[in-house]
């Protein structure tokens, strides 16, 4: 019974580590392979974040089931990475747009104010007046 549990734990940890490794590989390979900067933005921000999540969950399961010590650090790191990845992607996209995309190539925003990268944010005075 105990032997079976250890085997199950090893299987589970190995599966998480391998899936995490594959996702990390795909993310970094996409960063290398894709052609345009806006396309390259997708691979690391989604796939690599998921891969690190897999590796962290595998590590948490390893310490929980084999070393039998609970650690919540991995969960904290995973949460932090998952929260900050979209913010990073947004900032990198804005940086790219400011340097390499001309404003007249973009479609109309359909509002009174233009794209946030090129125009200043609407102040409260102009909205009221």
């Amino acid at each position, binding site marked *: 019974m105990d032997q079976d549990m250890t085997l199950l734990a*090893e*299987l589970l*940890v*190995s*599966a998480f*580590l*391998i899936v*995490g*490794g*594959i996702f*990390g*590989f795909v*993310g*970094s*390979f996409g*960063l*290398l392979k894709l052609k345009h*900067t806006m396309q*390259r*933005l997708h691979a*690391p921000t989604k796939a*690599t*974040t998921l*891969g*690190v999540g897999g*590796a*962290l969950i*595998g*590590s948490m399961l*390893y*310490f929980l089931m*084999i*070393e039998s*010590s609970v*650690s919540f*650090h*991995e969960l*904290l*790191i995973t949460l*932090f*990475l998952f929260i*900050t990845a979209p*913010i*990073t992607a947004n*900032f*990198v*996209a*804005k*940086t*790219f747009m*400011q*340097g*390499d995309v001309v404003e007249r190539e973009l479609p109309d925003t359909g509002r009174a104010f233009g794209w946030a*990268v090129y125009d200043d944010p609407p102040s409260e005075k102009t909205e009221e007046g």
Partner: protein
Amino acid sequence: MITYALIFAFACYGFGLLATLWRLLTGPTAADRILALDTMVINFIALLILYGVWRGTAIYFEASMLIAMVGFVSTVAFCRFILRGDIIE
């Protein structure tokens, strides 16, 4: 079995570090280079975690937590510097 899975994951993230280094050196735009640095930080966090599992110690979690925070702040600082010419306005 865990040893082989760890070796596989090490190989994957090691390749990831090399790929981000290549993109950092050759990336045509500044945004590419910032993205490569951010991905490099994420790959390095994964490598640290895997090394912690390999050695069976929980010491490396604090280090990877700190690296995650510093990596995020540095990415935002780089982007702010290119976007506005200043980090804190």
